């Protein structure tokens, strides 16, 4: 320290810059953390800010179709929360949120009921079979999501594969009306999001120490009971992770209700699209989008909290 204060000879430029950066609070460690923060700021926070700003604007016939966001003209001439008030006044929004949440919640439960046994089965397979089965789970992602949903239209159509098959079997006399029903929507959502349930569950179940089940059996616990008192509680972090990964995107799902759900399926994703493209009401579309975000922040926070807790436990 003493030598440093005495020595006044100029440092090389690189070192000088480094010194200044450190004094400003930028250390190499900060630089590493800086990258994700920068990314999130640029691609999430800034666009979100624009959306938020638009939600306070007013529709006008112009290009873009809302009052300017910045500058002297940006002072709102209407009440600031007008758009948000409309959200509560018109029941269409409330209904759309409710149906979306219902669709997401029920689909999540169905995904869990189908995905858990699948994940469990894969996790208990021989390692070579395991990777093959996992491949089969991931394989659909190699095809466009849109094409897969269209394929379901082909299956569920009145003249579709399923109806023809059932007619051929003689189970039904006349084709069933499957497409453009809530059932089709559920099939689409469960089918599309099932891998997101299976993969985290698999990751969790695969780690589980099999000797715990042996210990349970050794202490007199039958295998079925051991599953419910040992395996299920221990896989809870996997259940939470998988459910969040299904629930959150399913709430805002647009393509599946649009293609499979028929005109009456009023989902929040469609409401946003209608406001945005058909009504050209960008501010209202922004309000609806922000409300979805607020609605989803709660489960995300819960997810985060739970994940942190389980990580602490593992440490």
């Amino acid at each position: 320290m003493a030598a440093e204060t005495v020595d006044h000879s100029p440092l090389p430029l690189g070192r000088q810059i480094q010194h200044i950066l450190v004094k400003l609070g930028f250390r190499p460690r900060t630089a590493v953390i800086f990258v994700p923060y920068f990314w999130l700021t640029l691609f999430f926070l800034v666009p979100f800010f624009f959306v938020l700003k638009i939600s306070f604007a007013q529709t006008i016939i112009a290009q873009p179709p809302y009052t300017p966001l910045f500058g002297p003209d940006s002072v709102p001439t209407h009440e600031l929360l007008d758009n948000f008030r409309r959200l509560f006044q018109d029941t269409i929004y409330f209904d759309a949120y409710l149906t979306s949440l219902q669709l997401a919640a029920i689909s999540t439960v169905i995904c869990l009921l189908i995905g858990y046994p699948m994940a469990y089965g894969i996790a208990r397979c021989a390692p070579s079979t395991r990777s093959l089965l996992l491949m089969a789970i991931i394989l659909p992602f190699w095809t466009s999501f849109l094409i897969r949903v269209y394929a379901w239209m082909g299956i569920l159509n009145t003249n579709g594969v399923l109806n023809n098959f059932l007619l051929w079997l003689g189970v039904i006399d006349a084709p069933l009306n499957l497409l453009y029903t809530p059932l089709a929507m559920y099939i689409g959502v469960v089918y599309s999001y099932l891998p997101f349930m299976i993969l985290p569950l698999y990751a969790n179940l695969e780690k589980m120490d099999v000797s715990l089940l042996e210990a349970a059996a050794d202490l007199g616990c039958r295998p079925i009971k051991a599953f419910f008192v040992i395996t299920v509680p221990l896989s809870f972090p996997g259940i939470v992770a998988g459910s969040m990964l299904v629930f959150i995107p399913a709430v805002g799902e647009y393509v599946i209700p649009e293609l499979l759900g028929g005109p009456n399926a009023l989902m929040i994703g469609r409401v946003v699209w209608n406001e945005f493209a058909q009504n050209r009401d960008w501010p209202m579309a922004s309000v609806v989008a922000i409300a979805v975000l607020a609605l989803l922040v709660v489960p995300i926070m819960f997810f985060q909290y739970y994940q942190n807790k389980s990580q602490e436990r593992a440490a």
Partner: protein
Amino acid sequence: MAAERAKADSQTETWNDPDAVPYIRIENVTKKFGDFVAVNNVSLDVYRGELFALLGGSGCGKTTLLRMLAGFEQPTTGKIYIDGVDMADIPPYERPTNMMFQSYALFPHMTVEQNVSFGLKQDRVPADEIKKRVGDILDMVQMRNFAHRKPHQLSGGQRQRVALARSLVKEPKLLLLDEPLGALDKKLREATQFEIMNIQDRLGITFMVVTHDQEEAMTLATRIGVMNHGQIVQVGTPKEIYEYPNTKFVADFIGSVNLFEGYIQEDEADHVLIASEEAGCPIYIDHGISAAPGAEVFVAIRPEKLELSKTSTGTGHNCTPGTVKGVAYMGNLSVYLVQLDSGKEVKISMSNQRRAAEHAIDWDDRVYVTWHANSPVALLS
């Protein structure tokens, strides 16, 4: 206490009683995993109240044998009887056994108390009785203060005691312990060894311990079964195994040993004389081994049964010259490495009854290695 125990053992050597009915009977059990034979035609009888140790290196099949007793593996061929009942069709959750796992296998989402009471709850024991028994057993392993902790909040030694409590609380007919003390440091291990012996004396449970640690097996067990390549090569009391190993493998595996290759010159009822180039002198043993003259044998002598002196005994056998190549002072004893004139190196340990440096033997000294006629063991295989 050790003396008392030895006395008790000599009175209750059930395995030497021809009328005794074995408590565990393992009959020609073989276990194959694919082409690999993990356990090869093992037959073994263990009696009530014994503390039997299965000793062997890793992969010798000892854990597989234990897992077959617990019911986690099925024998490929052969039968297992516990208390006279054929175990073939009895699943683990109905067997009168409890196991303490090598990894402890404590349920991570349950507290110590919940872990220990788990087994009793499965048997629908009344709640107040569960509370009492769990409390008692936690007292015994000195873990009552930790009853509400989760396993991840415990140290290795504490987890091990919880695992022991969990396997003991149901008071099984047979307690299986898989490397019970492997994860503990030396001090804690010794303390726990005595704890296990106390419990065994108090509860009279039959114990079966799997271990690779010969010291642990010697301390704990009433009898030891030494395993190698899926077979039991020798069964006996710790003393028998140590003093009278029946094969080169057992002699080498248990403790430290000097082995000399040789062949039989004379084999009489009261003595046997073995010529050994490696030893550098004929080896005289004061009992017969009934083998043909000329047969190849290995002679095993424990390091503590060899003596060093600067003068020859002059008997012409059991005395061979060499040079001290190394001295390791270990506190309670010193180990000397002596190169015999034949080139063979032998280990000799001598207890340091007096303070160090009073041993007059040091590096590069010329010495005679001698032994008593009842010390060597002649091994045919």
